[in-house]
């Protein structure tokens, strides 16, 4: 660890509802917009299957994240799990993937907030409003994690209640629906559409694994992480199902597939003012909440990479008064602005999805390695023991690879670029850390030595005696 964080450490004050707010806050925007591309590819039935298949994968990823997060209690999340249980190359790749996933999403959210603000006040310009949103959220995260996540909790709760209220009013006959839309747009592209729709399925839940990234700042991580993460996952499953139903019975399928704000459009089609206002507000608030959560998660990933010298250790400083990784937080700003004004936002978002899917292969793999290295389930090592492991972890990896393969249709070059980028990162950091010979200090974490390490040590000693 670097010298910078010895004087001050991250403050441990977060509770389960903060974990929920971080996870759901980042993701709920994907239920307000973006998920409807599944309808364009596979119709209502394709979208429903994509929602269920991706939902199964994310339920498993959430359980893996709960177990790993409550065990390691570290800010880097997937990066730290890969570093401890897989190796430096995988750790660097997944650390960068998490950073890219969240920072690209932050840029996209800030632009959407600016567009919504402009549609309400036409005299505003997108460029300065985007800058203002990014700067404001960076400042809130600089000042303290509790304030940032409490804000997220309020914004996310309003947006979620808006969906729930709209759904129950519709389900109990308060809104005129069009069930014929369900049949008319059931499967426009045939059976191949069912498979093609899978590539946008992650939109419903993309980023929920980030909830576990505040483990180091939780008062009781072994309670807050599993409880907040699972409550968040159930919230998203409920929200996804409600959203799909509402939009499918209120918007014709051909329009739904290309809609920019589908939930808001569904509310407009209902003709009820209170829902138009609520869902319009919800769309705006989820974008702010998502960008806010992304600043939090991307800065923690960069902070963790810096703390272990994968990038300059200058970024691992903790603010003496606010106890936040303030340099890593501030550094999110120029990168997010760069992404926002690159002019290739759709490519940036696709890169974010591919980065996320790479994490969904490596998170269950980290859990499998964790179980092999530390089979004991003591309070110190594994306070939360996930069910049906490692079988469901293998199943999640299979689903993630299947979804990655569907991106080959339409996003071939993004996929190749991402593999080359993370491949180079893997080999570069593997080589760099092999020469620096850094080993994990299990005793510092209060853990026993991992399985097989004793044999390895004896083997190394024997080899060095042989060399002499």
């Amino acid at each position, binding site marked *: 660890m670097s010298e910078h964080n010895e004087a001050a450490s991250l403050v441990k004050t977060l509770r389960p509802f903060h974990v929920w707010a971080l996870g759901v806050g980042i993701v709920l925007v994907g239920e307000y917009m973006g998920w409807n591309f599944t309808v364009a590819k596979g119709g209502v039935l394709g979208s429903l*299957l994509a929602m269920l298949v991706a939902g*199964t994968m994310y339920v498993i990823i959430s359980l893996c994240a709960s177990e790993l997060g409550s065990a390691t209690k570290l800010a880097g999340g997937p990066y730290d799990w890969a570093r401890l249980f897989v190796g430096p190359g995988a750790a660097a790749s997944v650390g960068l993937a998490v950073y890219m996933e969240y920072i690209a999403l932050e840029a996209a959210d800030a632009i959407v907030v600016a567009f919504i603000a402009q549609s309400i006040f036409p005299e505003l310009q997108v460029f300065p409003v985007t800058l203002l949103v990014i700067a404001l959220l960076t400042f809130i995260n600089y000042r303290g994690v509790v304030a940032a996540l409490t804000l997220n909790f309020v914004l996310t709760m309003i947006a979620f209640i808006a969906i729930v209220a709209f759904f129950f009013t519709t389900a109990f006959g308060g809104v005129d629906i069009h069930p014929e839309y*369900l*049949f008319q747009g059931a499967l426009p592209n045939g059976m191949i559409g*069912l498979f093609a729709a899978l590539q946008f399925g992650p939109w419903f839940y993309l980023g929920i694994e980030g909830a576990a990234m505040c483990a180091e700042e939780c008062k009781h991580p072994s309670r807050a992480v599993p*409880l907040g993460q699972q409550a968040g996952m159930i919230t998203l499953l*409920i929200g996804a199902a409600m959203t799909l139903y509402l939009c499918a019975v209120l918007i014709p399928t051909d329009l739904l597939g290309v809609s920019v704000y589908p939930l808001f459009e569904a509310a407009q089609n209902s003709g009820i003012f209170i829902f138009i206002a609520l869902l319009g507000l919800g769309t705006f608030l989820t974008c702010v909440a998502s960008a806010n959560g992304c600043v939090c998660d991307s800065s923690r990933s960069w902070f963790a990479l810096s703390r272990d010298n994968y990038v300059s250790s200058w970024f691992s400083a903790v603010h003496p008064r606010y106890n936040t990784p303030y340099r890593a937080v501030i550094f999110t700003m120029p990168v997010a602005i760069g992404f926002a004004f690159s002019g290739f936002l759709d490519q940036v978002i696709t890169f974010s999805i591919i980065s996320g899917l790479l994490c969904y292969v490596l998170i269950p793999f980290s859990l499998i390695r964790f179980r092999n290295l530390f089979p004991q389930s003591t309070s110190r090592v594994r*306070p939360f023991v996930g069910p049906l492991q490692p079988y469901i972890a293998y199943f999640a990896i299979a689903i993630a690879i299947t979804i990655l393969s569907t991106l080959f249709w339409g996003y071939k070059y993004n996929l190749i670029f991402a593999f080359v980028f993370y491949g180079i990162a893997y080999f570069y950091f593997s080589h760099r850390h092999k020469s620096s010979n850094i080993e994990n200090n299990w005793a510092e974490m209060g853990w026993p030595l991992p399985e097989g390490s004793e044999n390895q040590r004896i083997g190394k000693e024997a080899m060095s005696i042989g060399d002499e």
Partner: protein
Amino acid sequence: METNNQALESKYHSKLNGDTLLVVGMLALLVGVEGFIIYRILSETWEIASDFFYLYVIFLGLIFLIETIGCLRVRDSIKNHMFEFKYYD
């Protein structure tokens, strides 16, 4: 001292019941909402979906099964460690 311990224990069990209620309530909402939506969509599109409806049943079943067992494990974990890690102080 005995009274203090009893009060503490009672407070912990009451907070644990709060956590349990939250999770059970959310699981019940999940089952109700997902079941309702899948029933409505499949019944309207049965002519097309009847050939592959089992895919929906399998994945829905997996979500319910894994999430329910996962939530039970979360509750067990909190119950087992609540005094050791002083969750509700």
